[in-house]
């Protein structure tokens, strides 16, 4: 998630919305995405879509992919997504369509979050591909990146709003209503039984904020780009451990 936050910080410093994600396959970052709705003149080029497209291109560029999968997108059964902000309803549904394994995100998206804030697309019955989505990973850092962005103006919007009087608040954060996203047992299995109180109190599991994430010198993403450019090493999934 620290890598995703660094990408988001990079996006912030290049004038895009500070939302970013990485896709991890067998412990390696194989793709990443940042929002690009302004430059692309399309409201749907969210970070997740860019990351998904890059993965499909990579699989198709691998000579032997069809010995492992019947479709290039079958690889998503073994891929986890780390995204700084909860996927929107559209992306939540797209992640379901491709069959993502698990999602981890920073802060919720009260306006159009699709993993529990507004709708809970990830576990609905519209397809058999359901996935668990864990909120609250570096949540405060993700919120601060967004706050920083929204104190600036989006000059591409039809009617830019004047936000000059807004200030970046570092000390107050909204509650995290865990039950919107996870059952208590899902929470305890992942964060540990000792954090159970956070669930009951709607409190962050990480209270301390790592401000270095927001530093203007924390925007070098070359290692992530490098990792995402590596060709895919596909491997057979272990079907059972008895061998």
């Amino acid at each position: 998630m620290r890598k995703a936050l660094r990408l988001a910080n990079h996006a912030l410093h290049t004038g895009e919305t500070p939302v970013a994600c990485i896709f991890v396959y067998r412990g390696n970052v194989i793709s990443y995405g940042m929002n690009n709705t302004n430059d692309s003149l399309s409201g749907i080029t969210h970070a997740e879509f860019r990351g998904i497209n890059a993965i499909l291109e990579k699989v198709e560029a691998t000579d032997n992919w069809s010995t492992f999968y019947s479709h290039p997108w079958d690889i998503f059964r073994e891929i986890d997504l780390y995204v700084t902000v909860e996927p929107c309803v559209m992306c939540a549904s797209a992640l379901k369509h491709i069959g993502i394994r698990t999602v981890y995100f920073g802060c919720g998206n009260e306006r159009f979050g699709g993993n529990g804030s507004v709708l809970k697309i990830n576990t609905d019955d519209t397809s058999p591909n359901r996935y668990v989505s864990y909120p609250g990973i570096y949540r405060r850092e993700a919120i601060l990146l967004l706050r920083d962005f929204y104190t600036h103006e989006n000059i591409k919007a039809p009617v830019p709003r004047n936000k000059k009087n807004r200030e970046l608040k570092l000390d107050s954060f909204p509650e995290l209503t865990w039950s919107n996203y996870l059952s208590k047992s899902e929470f305890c299995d992942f964060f540990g039984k000792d954090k159970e109180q956070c669930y009951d109190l709607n409190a962050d599991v990480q209270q301390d904020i790592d401000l270095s994430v927001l530093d203007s010198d924390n925007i070098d993403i070359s290692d992530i780009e490098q990792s995402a450019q590596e060709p895919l090493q596909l491997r057979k999934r272990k079907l059972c451990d008895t061998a």
Partner: protein
Amino acid sequence: MVKKGKNKHRIDYIHCTVDDKLLQISNKRTSSELSLVDVWSIKIQPHDSPKVLGLIRDMSNDDPHPLQHVKRLQKLEDGLLTVILCSVDLASREEVVSLLGEKGLGIETIEVRQVPAHCPPTKDMALEWGKLYWPLVWKGNPNDQILNEMVFNFDHIRSDLQLICTNSSKCCEQLPISTVIVDPLTNAVIASSNDERHRHPLDHSVMRCIQLVSEYEQQRRESIDDPSDHHYLCNNYHVYTTHEPCTMCAMALIHSRIARLFYLKQSPKTGALDPESGPGYTIHDHKLLNSKFEVFKWIGDEYQVADLDENVNA
């Protein structure tokens, strides 16, 4: 009161149809089918009403069941007022008891009642439901005005529906789903695509069309200098699609700011617009999402398209 009859089309305000061909799809609020919701009520002395109204004001924003159409205070017997506090889904008995306690109100008369979950489409029905269950506030049906002011160009609607039908019938390997996006000011077809998910799992026809609109705009901007002539996303465009779209596509259309969508066939298990489809999201008319668009289903039998497997997300 709505000045009906100004619209040149035959509008059925109860069933929300236009010329018996278009059915307005919206969330259930104005449905003529009665559904009931459990609410907490108490009896109070009239002089306690300011306290109770304050309490109701504080709670009503969070209530999952909007109760604006319900008369909150009703004089029943003994000079006491019966008050509807909030839905049972908002607060447990214990929570209601403690809130009343804080205001120094008695809790002996607390009980569960049933009230209509939404306002019916006509005044007569509002009176009837009021008599049967609980008095309702009738302020007219805002949807009457909305429908009455809508402009429909049936010639263009028909030709664009015919177009997607023809395109859909040409699908061979693909799923027979087809979409076009139209600028209603010029009636120009800006984008047209069939389903392409055999190549890419997210290339549903709606997503392809949105992508084509952005490519079209990028090209167009190369030849125009005046930024005021730029088009923002799919702002105000109309979308015609053969099958009720899935959640991804419906939300992509919200992000793209379209004005209106027409479809031919419902997707009962996976659709995201009709309140009866799938989980009943009505993405285009959802109070928590940041914008809305209008949706109509063509209910004539002129345009036939192939059925999909019920599990397909169109």
